């Protein structure tokens, strides 16, 4: 009964850094707490009523001391801030070689989809040592994708995409929790991250019958929803061609420039009037209410594939 854990295991490359920041701050906080508690108990005892301690020259003000005990905590705080901020940046900067996985939160499960088309519910299999970027969205309310062993967490917000990444550095299975209260079965919206040796992961990926890569399905949806009717070289309507668009800057009407990321593609499909590409007329119809969330992700996967020369999928 007593062999319960007191500290979470470290499953990702960033975990030890987060823990290092934590222990650094814990040390400072413990030291301060012990100091204050000691001084309180010591003074309360030494100067208790009836004791013969020296109470002469009581000082009620000392600006120098106050400056010191404003300045020193401030300096220590700034160090704490900086150290934590540095690791935070590392947590947010996605490495170039990260593979992608899509996680859709809905009451009360995680629907996870690999680019190769393999789907999982409440489980995510990943290979050891490979950075994985999880693109999150929600179908209903705000959820949060949390893997304590990896020390990462990110809210899944309806109406937009958010993302987080991790690089698992230990084989095993690690808890996955929803960490933003989302209704009745919030505490059952849990699962596992399975980190496997790369060879085992490949095997797992190929098991269960061939699946259609997301981008392939996306290409079909691109056609069936009529996108290729305008967004192709042979169209009579002048619409931007999408080859190589993903990940690159897009100048908009009105002078601003945005990066064509998941959010931009999604908004272009659902709210085409909001960010019209420069030099084009705002004639694209909206598909809001017609395209489902997981279909959106597949179309986005397809458009992403147009942006990388090696992975281009034929229409």
């Amino acid at each position, binding site marked *: *009964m007593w062999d*319960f854990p*007191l*500290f*979470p295991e470290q499953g990702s490359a960033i975990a030890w*850094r*987060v823990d290092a*920041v*934590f222990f650094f*701050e814990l040390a400072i906080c413990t030291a*301060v707490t012990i100091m*204050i508690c000691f*001084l*309180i108990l010591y*003074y309360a005892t030494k*100067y*208790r*009523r*009836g004791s013969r*301690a*020296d109470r*002469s020259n*009581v000082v*009620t*003000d*000392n600006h120098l*001391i*106050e400056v010191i*005990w*404003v300045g020193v*905590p*401030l300096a220590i*705080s700034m160090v*704490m*801030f900086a150290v*934590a*901020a*540095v690791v*935070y940046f590392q*947590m947010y900067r996605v490495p170039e070689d990260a593979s992608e996985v899509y996680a859709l939160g809905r009451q009360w499960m995680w629907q996870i989809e690999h680019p190769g088309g393999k789907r999982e519910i409440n489980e995510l299999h990943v290979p050891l040592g490979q950075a994985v970027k999880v693109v999150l969205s929600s179908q*209903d*309310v*705000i959820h*949060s994708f*949390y893997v304590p062993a990896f020390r990462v*967490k*990110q809210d899944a*917000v*309806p109406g*937009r995409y*958010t993302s987080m990444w991790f690089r698992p550095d230990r084989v095993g299975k690690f808890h996955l929790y929803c*960490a*933003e*209260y*989302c*209704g*009745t079965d*919030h*505490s*059952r919206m849990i699962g596992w991250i399975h980190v496997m040796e790369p060879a085992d992961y490949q095997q797992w990926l190929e098991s269960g019958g061939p699946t259609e890569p997301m981008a392939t399905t996306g290409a079909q949806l691109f056609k069936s929803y009529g996108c290729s009717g305008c967004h192709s070289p042979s169209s009579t309507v002048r619409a931007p061609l999408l080859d190589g668009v993903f990940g690159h800057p897009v100048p908009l009407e009105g002078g601003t420039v945005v990066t064509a990321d998941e959010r931009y593609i999604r908004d272009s499909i659902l709210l085409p009037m909001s960010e019209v590409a420069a030099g084009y007329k705002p004639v694209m119809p909206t598909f809001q209410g017609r395209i489902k969330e997981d279909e959106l992700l597949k179309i986005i996967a397809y458009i992403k594939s147009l942006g990388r020369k090696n992975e281009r999928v034929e229409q």
Partner: protein
Amino acid sequence: MSAQGAEPQPNYLTAGQSVRSWLLTIDHKRIGLLYMVSITLFFFLGGAAATLVRLELMTPKGDVVQPETYNKLFTAHGVIMVFFFLIPSIPAVLGNFLVPLMIGARDLAFPKLNLASWYVFMIGGVFTLWAVLTGGVDTGWTFYTPYSSMFSNTSVMSAALGVFIVGFSSILTGLNFIVTIHKMRAPGMTWLRLPLFIWAMYATSLIMILGTPVLAVTVALVGLERFFGFGIFDPKLGGDPILFQHLFWFYSHPAVYIMLLPSFGVINEIVPCFTKRPVFGYRTMATAMMAIAALGFLVWGHHMFVSGQSMYGGLIFSFLSFFVAIPSAVKVFNWTATLYKGTVSGTTPMLYALGFIGLFTIGGLTGLMLASLAIDVHVHDTYFVVAHFHYIMVGGAVMGYLGGIHFWWPKITGRMYPEIWGKLAALTIFIGFNLTFFPQFILGYLGMPRRYYEYDAEYQVLNVMSTAGASILAVGFLLPLVYLILSLWMGKEAGPNPWGAKGLEWEIPSPPTVHNFDEPPVAPERPYDYPLKEQDREPS
């Protein structure tokens, strides 16, 4: 004290004994008592909800209540404790009672508005209780959208209405205090001669009047969205759920300082009295409280680091959050320095005060950890946060409230409480509290999310410890309820100044007369004017 044979002077308790004289009173002291009774009721209601929560959490599986019920219980606990206990507690009970006394006034600036604030409070309470009784609310006290506005099928509207209404009670109290403190000080009572409790009430009132209206608007928008189906925060209809979070936390972060600053004020009165010396660094103490009030408005985004807020927004909010901790740290150091070369008595109020300083230190320092971006990503929405805010709210605010109630009990009632029981309760609360909440820091870092009624088996032992602590804590809270009420009949009669404290409230009878002072008193030249030279002091 009643003189032999002569008619006892009517005090504010005996002057008028009908129900009508209480329910239509405009005496700030009686209004303070009306609030005391109401918030005590709400405290035990919120506590009952917490008891059931902790009972459920003794075992990993959900086996005490249904999941929907559990969600309603933690929501009820949060809503009741935050809006109907913590926010009013010290200002509406002790502030109402003491502000005029401490500055030498006969009442607050707007006595009828004061009574109105209590009725508004009760009406808000009725709506919220209605929500709890007609099936409950399951959104969490934070009402995040779109769950609260579009998905929850519980009594969100009544609860939102209750919170909307009770906010105005807060605003009216704050308004009254600000005008009173500015305009009704006795001759000679300059700002730098004010008791620090008054500074605390002033700083708190500034937050109350500037922050609460934003909460009102936010809650109103959620209500509109829910009732009419407008897409104010629903992304499917063009709205932004994160806008709700910004609006909500813009109030709710300063709100935690509404809950905390008054306790600072109480500690600032208890410590000089029971060290028989002035507080170290009076000006700094006053400035620190004002700084906390101001800086508190700038840090709300630290509740939203993983919400989808930009990374750079996160950096700014983290940076500013470290700043708001500094004035609090300074206060802890100054209190410790006040003990130095003082004459310390370990009375019940002093035990609460010393406990406050230690527990608040832990709570505040863990706040720094939460302000640290890299750590917060891991522990946000886990039990680490729950532990942090309970250290501040219970270890801090509630201990401050109880310390204040004990300290001024003789003044309010004319009776002493039994000191042995006071000390026993304080100790029980301290032990129970730490056993309840310290394990939760560990649970949080381990990764146990909050608002879970089912959890993985490896978290059970720590949860059982926490529940055990909660049962001790419950006993600790029940003790004062019993002995304080009994003291009304059985307590030793207290004179005007049983503690030998400095301050205008201690120079009038206990309990005070209806009008407090016959003539405006003259303010002492220095606050906490305890004799400093050895030879001036009474022999120990």
